[in-house]
């Protein structure tokens, strides 16, 4: 079943309609009112993204301060609808220069209407690739040459692209310097018990690519993943080189990657779109190198005092360092005063989130700074229930480190003209939800 959206609305937080576009006449115009009264004004908001009211279904998502609502009257593919919204928002962001909020919508409402006309035809999602759409739907208006004398001129290049075989790349690109930038961004999700045993741990990574390549290049990416290497050694009939291999649990690829070839040969080969895009996402659950270990001890001394000791140990190479490390240690609501002692960085009590926030700007590897704090609590009468102790959360970024151990082995670029390319590779590991129970 297709999405078959009957209407799409953009609302602000008050429920005012910013943009509305009706695609089919099977839903009435008063559908927004139904959404407002039955969803926005109730507690339900934000809990369940699919609601049915009087025969119509509403799929909604909140993006910054805007609600995007898709109204559907028949059986539709919900996953497809949400994916569409996500894709559409990233398209708008790329048009508006990175932001998508109420103001951006106001500033670009004409453009949004034009885009909505293009990306959702009669409720069916169409090509959402910004690279191509930008060729013929532009903010500056299509004052393209063919607008003046369409009959005499040959069909302009831009329109050929729309109709080309590769839906995401136009032909005839020329760069003086052919460069490829690869960013491997990993985020580590961790849930650790207070005793230091790992309850749940995985790494979700993505490979971001920025291409400035001329012509129609064919790229091939080699990683140190197990399946790919095994397959390669099978083909070349020689044993794999020693060194760490990674087992990628799950991968998803950008639509440019030839999936059939990945299925048969386990190689990632593709014709990249121009500019920046996300080549692949993967997940790894085994053999994760945790960059940090957190060892908390929290003692409740009577009803009004608490002692907090947290030791954070960096377990990556001594030459590397982490940036922007933030450790959030939760304390009870009735905290009155906190005295800190830290060996590195700065710490303070943030009452709005009920946490002790410990920030270390630059955190070298193989060190273990500690924080010790004395927390004074106000004793209250209703304080009968014990404090539930939410987990300690951590944020960080470690450049040139991958928690999964993934490395790019090669990136081959092949183009007819045979130019040379320069490849740049960066690695960075970030914290996803890095939580330690205490």
């Amino acid at each position, binding site marked *: *079943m297709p999405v078959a959206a009957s209407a799409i609305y953009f609302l602000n937080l008050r429920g005012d309609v910013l943009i509305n576009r009706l695609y089919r006449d099977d839903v009435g115009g008063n559908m927004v009112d139904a959404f407002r009264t039955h969803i926005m004004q109730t507690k339900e908001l934000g809990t369940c993204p699919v609601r049915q009211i009087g025969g119509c279904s509403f799929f909604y998502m909140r993006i910054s301060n805007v609600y995007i609502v898709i109204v559907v009257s028949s059986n539709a593919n919900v996953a497809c609808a*949400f994916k569409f919204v996500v894709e559409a928002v990233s398209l708008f962001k790329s048009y508006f220069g990175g932001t998508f909020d109420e103001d951006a919508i106001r500033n670009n409402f004409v453009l949004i209407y034009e885009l909505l006309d293009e990306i959702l035809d*009669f409720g069916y999602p169409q090509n959402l690739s910004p690279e191509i759409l930008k060729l013929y739907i532009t903010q500056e208006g299509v004052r393209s040459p063919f607008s003046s004398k369409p009959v005499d001129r040959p069909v302009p290049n831009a329109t050929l692209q*729309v109709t080309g075989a590769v839906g995401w790349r136009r032909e005839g690109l020329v760069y003086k310097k052919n460069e490829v930038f690869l960013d491997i961004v990993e985020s580590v999700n961790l849930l650790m018990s207070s005793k230091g045993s790992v309850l749940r741990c995985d790494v979700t990574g993505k490979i971001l690519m920025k291409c400035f390549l001329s012509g129609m290049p064919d790229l091939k990416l080699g990683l140190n993943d197990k399946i790919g290497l095994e397959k390669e050694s099978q083909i070349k009939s020689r044993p794999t080189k020693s060194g760490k291999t990674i087992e990628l649990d799950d991968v998803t690829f950008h639509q440019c990657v030839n999936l059939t070839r990945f299925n048969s040969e386990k190689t990632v080969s593709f014709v990249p779109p121009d500019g920046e895009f996300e080549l692949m996402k993967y997940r790894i659950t085994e053999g994760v190198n945790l960059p940090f270990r957190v060892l908390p001890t929290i003692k409740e001394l009577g009803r009004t005092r608490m002692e907090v000791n947290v030791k954070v140990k960096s377990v990556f190479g001594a030459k590397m360092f982490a940036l922007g490390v933030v450790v959030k240690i939760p304390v009870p609501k009735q905290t009155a005063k906190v005295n800190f002692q830290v060996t590195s960085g700065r710490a303070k009590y943030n009452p709005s989130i009920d946490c002790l926030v410990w920030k270390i700007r630059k955190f070298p590897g193989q060190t273990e700074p500690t924080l010790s704090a004395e927390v004074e609590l106000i004793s209250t009468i209703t304080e009968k229930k014990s404090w*539930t102790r939410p987990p300690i959360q951590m944020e960080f970024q470690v450049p040139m480190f991958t928690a999964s151990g993934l490395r790019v082995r090669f990136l081959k670029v092949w183009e007819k003209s045979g130019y040379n390319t320069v490849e740049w590779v960066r690695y960075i590991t970030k914290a996803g939800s890095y939580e330690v129970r205490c």
Partner: protein
Amino acid sequence: MFTQFGATSESLSKASTMMFRIGTDAHLYDDPDDVSIVPLLDSKFDSEKCEALKRLLALIAQGFDVSSYFPQVVKNVASQSLEVKKLVYLYLLHYAEKRPNEALLSINYFQKDLGDLNPLVRAWALRTMAGIRLHVIAPIILVAVGKCARDPSVYVRKCAANALPKLHDLRLEEHSASIEEIVGILLNDNSPGVVGAAAAAFASICPNNLSLIGRHYKRLCETLPDVEEWGQIVLVGILLRYAVAKHGLVEGSIMISSRSLVKYNSEREDLEPCLARKENPDDISSEICSEIADVVSRSYLEGPEKYLSQLSCMDKNPSSMDISHFTSSKSNDDVKILLQCTSPLLWSHNSAVVLAAAGVHWIMAPKEDIKKIVKPLLFLLRSSNASKYVVLCNIQVFAKAMPSLFVPHFEDFFVSSLDSYQVKALKLEILSSIATCSSISAIFLEFQDYIRDQDRRFAADTVAAIGLCSQRLPDVAKTCLEGLLALALSESSNGDFASADEEAVLVQAINSIKTIIKQDPPSHEKVIVYLVRSLDSIWAPAARAMIIWMVGEYNNVGGVIPKILPTLFKYLAGRFTLEAVETKLQILNACTKVLLRAKGEDLSILRKIVGYLFELAKCDFSYDVRDRARILKNLLSHRIGSPYLEEVKDQPEIEDLAHVLTESIFGGQTKPPSCEPLSYRFYLPGSLSQIVLHAAPGYEPLPEPHSLIYDESCNISTDVQGIKTSGVGVAHNEPNENDDSEAVSGSSDEENTSDYSSQESMSGSSESGGSGSASDVNDNAGPLIHLSDADLTHRNRVEVSEENDASGSNGVDELMSKRDLESWLDENPGLNQNSLDLGHVQRSLARISIKDFGGLVKPKSYTLLDPANGNGLSVDYTFSSEVSSISPLLVCLHVSFRNCSKEPMSDILLFEEESNRSPDSSDQSVSESSPVSRSEVPTLVPMEEIANLEPGHTLKRILQVRFQHHLLHLKLVLGCNGRKHLVKLRPDIGYFVKPLPMDIEEFSNKESHLPGMFEYIRRCTFTDHISELNDKYESSLVKDNFLLICEKMALKMLSNANLFLVSVDMPVACQP
């Protein structure tokens, strides 16, 4: 501000546009009204026109009606500037329906744009034109779409594919054949982009015309990975339907596993559990839950509503499938290729594509291969919160039917603090259904954490999940019980100022304890005693009620409980007045049960207590409690020596009766939890229905396995055999689907709507079988075509007069001479009485007449009232071809009323709008029983009033309407709950038609009376059949192509529910 300058000189205007470009459109959005728009629209500069149009768009966005500018805007469609054009298009699309007449003005420009060199212009023109949803221009659009479907540019072809659903949505029955034809062409396109859009069109136009897919199946599978992601989703669904319809279910897949295991006792039965055990040595229960799997597969095939209703009327209908119906993924190429081509999609970036591909594997892949969908599905849990919810809804079904899939991945379902409540609840449910002995300890550790969660509702759900786990895994019941008891105690300790949410945890804990005890009451005696002891601290009424119920239920279990009963009831009697109603009722019930079992001195004490309790209850505030006490007292009169005892004693048989009654009500121990009928509802993975758990409009279960019979040649020969042997009535049905390669169709080269006479000659070879005009044989077809001449050998000439009414489409009916039409139509009823067997039908005629095509053509449903406007009342109507019993002028409609709201509705009635009554029909009275003459036929025969409509129910009524042969809407009033809704009934010209047999002379006479009608002449020359005829002459004419053609033609016209005057001349030069 800048515009004043702009209007003065050209240079300044250019400057002003420059200024506009620098800023954004925000100022236009915020006050679009600050300059007058009309002069800007009339300006000769494109930039000013653009600005005006942007202002209009801003007004539209903010919900103002700016349709008054329509004339000024429309003329700008002629602008050469693409940008102006685009904005005008946006405006047009928004208001075209409101201002149809002005919108028509733009059509010429669109047609001009369709010939533009720039594919973008062509595509946009087509898209906008198709978006103008006017019936009048539909034929023009159809022609344009047909042309664009052969455009050299991929983009234009894609737009053509997208325009098809829009056309279809206008409900142009007469054109549906050509629309489907174009779908077929586009499905065959070389470019994957077009195929994706064509798939979407197919799914919305003719999802059941699977024979169309069959022709391209292999190619579609192969292009699948290259189709753009949105198209992939649709295409995967279509291919799945085709594969099921063509090849049936796959042997060894989840869909038939349970049945084959149970029914055939094949070797697999022994084989598979072994396999499973090898994988999960510690686990028995995690193999496929066959019962649920069975429900799932049946739900997929039949739709849960139907399945559940079947379940209620017959306990288990043996499935009628036999093993030969199943196909194997190894031997069947089509299934193999489908699985092969969908498996790369599991790595797609798009979560919906992954889900769709997983759905195919779930249904079609053999069980041991399903594993490959698990990891991709789990990866989807990393996407946005909304998608996560959708994916979990689907995983939940997979996990329930086949827990073994997800058993090793239980950690993925651990709740994270960022999840929304719905997501958390789903994860808990999945966890409790995939827990195994090895993972349960880890899961319980995790649960302990959840119980401490701030969100008490979630904590309560966790407690319930613990109960479920312990039910599934009896080994852990003891641990669970201990934990739950501790929890109950700690929860009850802070019960003083507990809110409703807080209580929920406690109540749920007691409830879970109850379910555990139920499984084995004697061994848990101590727990009950313990709970009774803590009654003092447990304050939640629901929890107390449950504990008291347990005491009553298990009052003679073990040795301790009977001993504490008197004390307990003394305590309860003392507190009775303080209890909540719920608890009071439970106390009364419990004491009744106890009294029935009590012996010896306990009995006397209990009697006193119970008597006291009844006295108290008699004066209770709640009538429920009072009533319950009165009933119980009378029932128990023989046990408690009440004042009524004497009276009762006089009638010992009543006493006995009361005794037996009480015993049977309260005495019997409740049976151990029996297998309740599974009332889960399952829908196809990925559909909206699966998420909201009821069939959303338009939901269709999988097609019947093997419903698609594709082998065409044998099909036709059997048909002809049928014709030959029976000679009189041949049942041949082609449901509402059409083949594009049929001999009669081929409306490719119309240039203009007014000129429809084109000639085309075809060779008969395409028709006679090779290129595959698939026809379906349906078992329920009624006799459609009567052949009055069985003696085929002596026939020289076959004249088929398929007689129908004649009229054009909505758009052209003005063109015809109206008087002729009226006279023609009004003669129908008189002639209708003629018997079918007319004497003057010549011997050498094969006559095709229509009897009832209502059963053959699937009627189209129209909406009379949508639930959003009608406070939840949804009314749909379909036309039926039944002949009205009152007057032949009336058209019968089936109206179905559905209550979509939560409250029952009453007094639903459809009646005529008073003001609408035309003077000549105002004197009609309904009660006339004499044969009504034409002028006295009421416009609407009142329907039977629906007194009450329960929520979710659907009622059908037959409505008889006279449209007066007008194509105007009939305004009616729908009364419901005392409120009135104005509704419009849209006539369908196809149903004005009544069968009318006549001979040739009469026919040609009539024909001459109908000048200037839509004429559409096609000439086909067939040569093949003659040679075949000659060849097989001896073997008594195996194939009669004429008859086949006639049937096809008649069916085609009937399936369109369209009106034609058809005369077919078929001279046969058949000389051996």
